[in-house]
């Protein structure tokens, strides 16, 4: 086994091409355009065109085909928001933001798996196309925008005072309240980083794994890389779901004030149920 790997590796001059960072393609007025930005713009244009055409073709009586797929995705997002906020009206109100984030992340992940994305097409020696979500700058921007939206909605729902009370909950004369409030604000900032890192690492490592198994497969590359491409299709949809689901959870936690209420009686029942 080890010998076979060595023989295959010896026939190739270099290892698999692994890029963690995007490469700069050209500059417009001193502003560098990287390959992930370039592909991100292409993906956004495609998504806008596809979704606008689909929205125009939507009828009360359901149609077959792609329209129905988009309807299923949107209905799924509305159902998820309804589950975590408990109100259909709010769910329909907040759905456009989360549905567009969901479709953008999912299509960026899936379009990154197309042949031609990566090493195949080059421009001045650098790969021309790179999936937008396989770039830490892109995912950081996406998660920052989503978290700013969450703060904006929370301020609009509860007012500035209620929004601040969410962080500094408890007795205001107690100095520990302010200490804990600072930690709450800090945890809000770490959510930006964790959302961005999760999406970026999942997609970038998927790309790396596909590259490694294409390289190891040598002449049988389509056979060895196919399972991982199918896995990445699943992971791409799952990460889009997780990205939107976590933002919805943060939003519903920020606009809901149920942590003041005490649970009575139920905890005692649970204790007896566990011991029984």
């Amino acid at each position, binding site marked *: 086994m080890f010998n076979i790997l060595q023989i295959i590796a010896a026939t190739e001059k270099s290892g698999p091409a*692994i890029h*963690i960072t995007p490469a700069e393609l050209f500059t417009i007025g001193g502003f560098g355009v990287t390959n992930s930005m370039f592909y991100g713009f292409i993906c956004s244009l495609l998504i806008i065109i596809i979704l606008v055409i689909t929205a125009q073709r939507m009828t009360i009586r359901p149609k077959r085909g792609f329209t129905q797929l988009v309807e299923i995705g949107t209905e799924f997002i509305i159902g*998820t928001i309804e589950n975590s906020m408990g109100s259909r009206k709010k769910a329909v109100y907040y759905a456009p933001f989360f549905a567009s984030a969901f479709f953008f992340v999912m299509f960026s992940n899936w379009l990154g798996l197309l042949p031609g994305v990566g090493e195949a097409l080059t421009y001045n020696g650098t790969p021309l196309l790179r999936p937008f979500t396989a770039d830490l700058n892109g995912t950081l921007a996406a998660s920052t925008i989503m978290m700013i939206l969450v703060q904006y909605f929370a301020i609009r729902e509860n007012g500035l005072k209620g929004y601040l009370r969410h962080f500094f909950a408890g007795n205001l004369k107690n100095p520990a309240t302010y200490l804990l409030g600072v930690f709450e604000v800090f945890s809000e900032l770490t959510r930006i980083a*964790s959302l961005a*890192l*999760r999406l970026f*690492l*999942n997609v*970038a*490592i998927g790309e*790396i794994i596909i590259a490694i198994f294409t390289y190891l497969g040598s002449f049988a590359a389509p056979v060895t890389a196919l399972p991982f491409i199918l896995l990445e299709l699943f992971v791409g949809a*799952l*990460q889009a*779901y*997780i990205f939107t*689901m*976590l933002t919805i*959870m943060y939003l519903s936690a920020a606009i809901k004030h149920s942590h003041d209420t005490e649970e009575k009686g139920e905890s005692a029942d649970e204790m007896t149920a566990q011991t029984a």
Partner: protein
Amino acid sequence: MELDVLAKGIMMGFGMLGPAIGIGLIGSAFMNAVGRNPEAAKYFGQVFVIIAIVELMALLVFASLFII
């Protein structure tokens, strides 16, 4: 043989240990919950969200392979 190959092997081994145990615990807890109360099977989507939180640690380890 260079020593950083050894370092990468140790890092992958120990770094993947924790997330593997964590994901196993999540799965076992979900199965326990469904076994006790079959109504809980509808929370299958939530399991993936919690797994994604744990998986981030494993991905950080894997990504640092290419940095060191």
